[in-house]
């Protein structure tokens, strides 16, 4: 019964001549098109579609990551054998082990870093298309102050985060890996503190940007929401002071537009949220699988000894963790801002 009533309301809304006001979500970028092949009817359906495609994507990602991890385990096993040979220098074997791990891991790590950077760029570019549509829909619904503040804040923080990732965090990941390799090669933990500082710097850069953004969004939502609510109340007062028939026509027209803008805003928002998730999920699965398998590899290799090369494997795991954090941070930023814009006025 509810569905029938909802359909009737939507048909009635569409029958009103509001063709001048159309808000459509930008299509899913190519990177996410595989995860959201059809236009979903509901958020839950779309989410299920993305999860199902992501599970299918898990298999090739696992095979790719497992190959690297098997090579690492084999190398560490051989190294521990070499270390147990009489007359073997621990320093030399550690150096060889470090170089082996570095050679085996650099190519996949570099590919995953490139994937992370590409994902951040794609998410950011999609956000630049989605946010103006959502902002205009909220403004059409009477939330001019809220939408302007949310738009400015989100685009600014998105630019900040993207710049921080491409100009600071990604080079820092390389610096972190370089320091880890150097530390493992030199031994004695000479560069350990510097490496830990770099990791701390990367983690906190992301955290601080997200904390400030969340704070900004929370405060903006309350302050500008009140201003918009007051403006809508003032407009209603103006209408109520008019000639009854004109006031009634104006009131009906405004109400229709508010409702239809709300319906369109929700539709754009839901599609936008799913599109953002579709772009993010593939790289997240690929990097995440590599992260988990490297953790397992580190634990398995720890049994064989070869402390420094194993520690280097764990450092590569940390770098993968950083990649997961940076792609997820951009995704989270877009999800939060889209949800806030969907909430709209008051």
């Amino acid at each position, binding site marked *: 019964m509810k569905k029938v009533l909802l359909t009737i309301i939507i048909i009635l809304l569409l029958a009103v001549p509001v063709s*001048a006001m159309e808000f459509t979500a930008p299509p899913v970028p190519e990177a996410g098109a595989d995860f959201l092949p059809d236009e979903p009817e509901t958020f839950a359906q779309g989410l299920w579609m993305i999860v199902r495609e992501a599970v299918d994507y898990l298999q090739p990602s696992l095979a790719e990551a497992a190959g690297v991890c098997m090579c690492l385990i084999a190398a560490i096993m051989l190294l521990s054998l070499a270390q147990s040979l009489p007359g073997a220098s621990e320093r030399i074997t550690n150096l060889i082990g470090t170089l082996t791990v570095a050679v085996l891991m650099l190519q996949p790590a570099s590919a995953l870093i490139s994937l992370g950077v590409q994902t951040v760029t794609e998410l950011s570019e999609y956000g630049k298309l989605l946010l103006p549509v959502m*902002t*205009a829909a909220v*403004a059409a619904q009477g939330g001019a102050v809220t939408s302007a503040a949310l*738009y400015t804040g989100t685009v600014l923080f998105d*630019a900040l985060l993207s710049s921080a990732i491409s100009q600071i965090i990604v080079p820092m990941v390389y610096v972190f890996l370089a320091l880890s390799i150097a530390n493992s090669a030199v031994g004695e933990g000479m560069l350990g503190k510097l490496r830990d500082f770099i990791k701390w710097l990367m983690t906190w850069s992301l955290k601080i940007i997200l904390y400030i953004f969340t704070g900004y969004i929370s405060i903006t939502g309350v302050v500008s929401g009140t201003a918009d609510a007051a403006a809508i109340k003032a407009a209603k007062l103006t209408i109520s002071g008019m*000639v009854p028939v004109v006031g009634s026509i104006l009131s009906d027209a405004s109400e229709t537009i508010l409702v239809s803008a709300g319906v369109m805003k929700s539709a754009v928002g839901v599609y936008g949220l799913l599109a953002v998730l579709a772009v993010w999920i593939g790289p997240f699965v690929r990097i995440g699988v590599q992260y988990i398998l490297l953790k397992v590899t580190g634990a398995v290799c720890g049994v064989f000894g070869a402390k420094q090369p194993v520690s280097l494997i764990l450092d590569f795991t940390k770098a993968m963790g950083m990649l997961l954090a940076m792609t997820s941070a951009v995704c989270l930023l877009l999800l939060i801002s889209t949800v806030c814009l969907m909430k709209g006025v008051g």
Partner: protein
Amino acid sequence: MGAIREYLISVVSVAAMCGILNSFMKGKGTVTAVIKFLSGVCLALAIASPLVNIKLSGLLSYTDILNIEAENVVTDGENKAQQAISAIIKSETEAYILDKAASLGIELEVESVLSKSQPQIPEKIILTGSVSPYAKAQLSAWIRDKLGISEEEQQWNG
């Protein structure tokens, strides 16, 4: 990415060289200490070199551009809503008059003109069709009373 690869290779090479050098140093002599110190300096230089090139200028002036962009987007949304509201008001007003005209047995065409100021309300009515003076007076008075549009703002054609 080519530059990053180059950087990484240079750091790894320096680290490897330092590692090999240090591996030949046994004991705690002055030479070992100097080699260790020089290794550290070389590595620090190799690692810190790209950090010098980080540029964050221009990010602050970006906020001004963003504010203008936000204003444009909001105005676009408001304009779209206003256009849609105007279209509804116009058609509803015309339908309302046509409904009354039909009840009076009048056949005519109606066009409403909305005010420029906000909120846009009907300020002028153009009525086209052959109407008897009695019916015209009746409809005219009804428009004045119900819609608040004076006889001067009612344009009768035909």
